[in-house]
């Protein structure tokens, strides 16, 4: 009996919502359809507008340098107009970042609407949220999309450790969690600062703590405050080339750079193991061991099972996924295969309430809505409460029904569905679309309501507002 739901589950819970015809092409081969998406290389986001994080950041760093110069002039009083110029320069950074952000959001939505590998896209979203940065920190606005393109997508079918290393060296993450300026209390930089002006630069724990808590071991993963502090010392020097001051402005700014002058010297003890000081390699060594830890395997398995199976992940599935993660040293392809083969994933359709992102994307896919560039691509996510790349904290967006099914949130969805219905009523027929998008989970109640709707627009609204379409 449960087998009749497999196509719908594959398209909705593993995918991003069915496009017309998708359920039919999945047919009885739901697991094969998913496995086939994992072969070959993950596609890149193709869009002429997109630029590398280094290019964006180099421009922003240059503007910040100009800003510093203007601030100095303001302070010296040499140029009476310097203060106004400084404000203008500050706005320029936003003028660099905002179009970059909107281009990323547009390209991401276009990919989601058109992709034939929606499972791969959902996995990308999953990891992007696991390694979350949030654009409500200004510096990240122009870089969040590039983190996903440069660190997540190339590794989504690879080894977990490679994704981890790439993410933790990406400028977006280093800036978001403040590590670019973290310096060892006994580093060359700190010693010279003390001589020069009595200042005492030192470590910032933010990145080290969140790597342990959110990216690898998980909060119960057995680390102590001392581990956090020492790991932060290990990571001192993980920084970015270029900078606001001309003195350290290098010709190739905006890229990951290990700065030996910031690094805390010495062998360090993290989680009971000594790591000799080999500069950058010290941090790489800790990250490799974290990626191989059973706690990490369990933490990742729990999150995957929660995302793809149910809010309360079944223990059996978590254990099997974790075991495969450990056995293959974090081979993600192997891990996804175990996930696909988990019987728990296929028994209960509609066990997850769609996040606003899922709801918007599945609507775009189901109705084949065109994606306009610019703010229009962002607006629905903003309206429904999940502005792209802005989870507000390094923990990322939450992943349980309770987090998304508030009264006001539901009403916004329904109101948006109504606006969409009115806009596309001329070219979409809900009576035809309903079975194509919902397949075996379409209830007779919803079918009847759509059939009896007062208008084509209202029929679409009812389809999008139906309980079956609200869940995945």
């Amino acid at each position, binding site marked *: 009996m449960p087998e009749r739901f497999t196509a719908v589950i594959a398209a909705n819970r593993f995918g991003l919502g069915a496009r017309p015809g998708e359920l039919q092409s999945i047919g009885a081969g739901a697991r094969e359809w998913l496995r086939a998406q994992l072969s070959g290389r993950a596609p890149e986001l193709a869009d002429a507008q997109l630029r590398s994080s280094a290019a964006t950041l180099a421009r922003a760093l240059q503007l910040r340098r100009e800003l510093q110069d203007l601030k100095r002039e303001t302070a010296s009083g040499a140029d009476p107009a310097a203060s106004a110029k400084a404000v203008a320069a500050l706005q320029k950074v*936003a003028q660099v*970042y905002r179009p970059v*952000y909107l281009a990323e959001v547009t390209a991401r939505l276009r990919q989601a609407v058109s992709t034939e590998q929606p499972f791969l896209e959902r996995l990308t979203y999953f990891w992007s949220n696991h390694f979350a940065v949030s*654009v*409500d*920190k*200004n510096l990240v*606005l122009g870089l969040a999309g590039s983190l996903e393109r440069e660190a997540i997508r190339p590794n989504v079918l690879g080894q977990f450790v490679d994704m981890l290393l790439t993410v933790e060296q990406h400028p977006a993450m280093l800036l978001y*969690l*403040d590590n670019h*300026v*973290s*310096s060892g*209390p006994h580093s060359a930089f700190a010693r010279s600062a003390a001589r020069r002006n009595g*200042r005492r*630069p*030192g*470590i*910032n*724990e*933010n990145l080290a*703590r969140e790597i342990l*808590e959110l990216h690898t071991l998980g*909060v119960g993963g057995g680390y102590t*405050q001392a581990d*956090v502090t020492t790991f932060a010392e290990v990571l001192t020097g993980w920084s970015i080339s270029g900078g606001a001051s001309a003195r350290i402005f290098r010709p190739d700014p905006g890229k990951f750079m290990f700065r030996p002058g910031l690094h805390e010297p010495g062998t360090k003890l993290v989680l009971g193991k000594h790591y000799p000081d080999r500069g950058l390699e010290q941090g790489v060594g800790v990250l490799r061991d974290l990626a191989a830890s059973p706690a990490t395997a369990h933490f990742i398995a729990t999150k995957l099972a929660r995302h793809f199976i149910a809010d309360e992940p079944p223990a059996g599935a978590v254990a099997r996924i974790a075991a495969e993660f450990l056995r293959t040293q974090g081979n993600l392809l192997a891990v996804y295969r175990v996930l696909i083969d988990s019987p728990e994933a296929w028994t209960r359709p509609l066990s997850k309430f769609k996040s606003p992102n899922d709801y918007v994307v599945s609507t775009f896919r189901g109705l084949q809505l065109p994606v306009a560039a610019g703010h229009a691509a962002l607006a629905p996510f903003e*309206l*429904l*409460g999940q*502005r792209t790349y802005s989870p*507000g*904290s390094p*923990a990322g967006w939450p992943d349980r029904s*309770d*987090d*998304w*099914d*508030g*009264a*006001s*949130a*539901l*009403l*916004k969805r*329904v*109101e948006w569905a*109504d*606006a969409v219905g009115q806009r596309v009523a001329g070219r979409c027929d809900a009576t035809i679309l309903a079975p194509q998008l919902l397949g075996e989970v379409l*209830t007779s*109640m919803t079918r009847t*309501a759509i059939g009896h*709707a*007062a208008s084509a627009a*209202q029929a679409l*609204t*009812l389809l999008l*507002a*139906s*309980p079956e379409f*609200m869940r995945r």
Partner: protein
Amino acid sequence: MNRWKRREFLTGTAAACGALLTSGLTFAQLPKERAARMVCVIMRGALDGLAAVAPVGDPDYAPLRRELALRPAGSPQGGLPLDRLFVLHPALGFLHDCFTARELLVFHAVASPYRERSHFDGQDVLESGAIHPHALQTGWLNRALACLQEPGTAPRELGLALGQNVPLVMRGAAPVTSWSPSRLAMLDEETLQRISDLYAADPVLAARLADAVAMGDVAAMGDVGAMGDVAAAGDGMSHSTLAAPHPKADRYDAIVRAAAGFLRREAGPNVAVFDTSGWDTHANEGDAQGQLAARLGALDSGLRTLKEALGPVWSDTAVLLATEFGRTAAINGTRGTDHGTGTAAFLLGGAVRGGRVLADWPGLANGSLYQGRDLAPTTDLRCVLKGVLTEHLRVSSAALERSVFPDSRAAKPLRDLIRT
């Protein structure tokens, strides 16, 4: 086709929507404790209590805070005077006015029972009221509201979350709802009725939709609808970070005006909760000016607006500001502070017996710091919360111990927080 009116829609689904508008009870008829209003502000990200309420009289404070140390009251850019030990951050001008008017209580060296340093587990403990993270799936405020329901009457929605979704502190069995400003056109009544019919077999969605419509109705009819350009304000909130380096001073205006509008209504909710964020000041925290000052200033301005918008209801109101934990006593190497333990909390409003700083001050000497780095907690935050719930919302001690804060017997409610 019969054109439904909003109100008919509501009564037609009264079982699901509670009795927000259909209840015969009004505040005029309610006993005094039911007139009590409470606003709970969750400060996510771990507020630096030593910057918000600086112990400038402690000799160890300035050396720990170095270039970020606030100056005593009376000096240039100095703090606002509280007592011989403490000053308020200079950005908290409204809070200081409240203090002078004896409408602000400051608590210091407080912490929840949580002793690790994860934001997310810390917020879970702060909101659930449990001792350990993830031990309870409901929030202490919701469980307190459940105790206030009149037995034998239709459950009344006493709680409101300002935001699209309900935060953990307000989740649970007691009916609550959420509200946020909309930029979308309202659905026509007939479509709404059909969607409601479609949810007949789905109790969760049915209840949520009825709630939302009821709140929208209240907003449209009352003060909330007249609160100015909500849409533009909401929009401003979402865009404020794109261009501006600091949060706009009016970032909370729309939300506090909405809260006041709902709280002023007869038979409206008694308790409102909203989130604030941006308190995780790891780098370039600033001193009298800077990042934290801008955030504090925006919140201070929002609270001033709340008082204005509440009008006469302010005198029945207590506003609680609480955060998951504090930050390190010393500044870190990037002119910020890392995750710590003890911090400050605030209770303000016309109902508050204010003008005092309540702190069993542990000192900041090296040997006094928790684990050698954080302000040591000497007051359990639950003592504050239990005191407010007992004296203000009149939650019985039995209910407090049994359901609102299980395993909290050692944390005795603080007394004399609320005017009698």
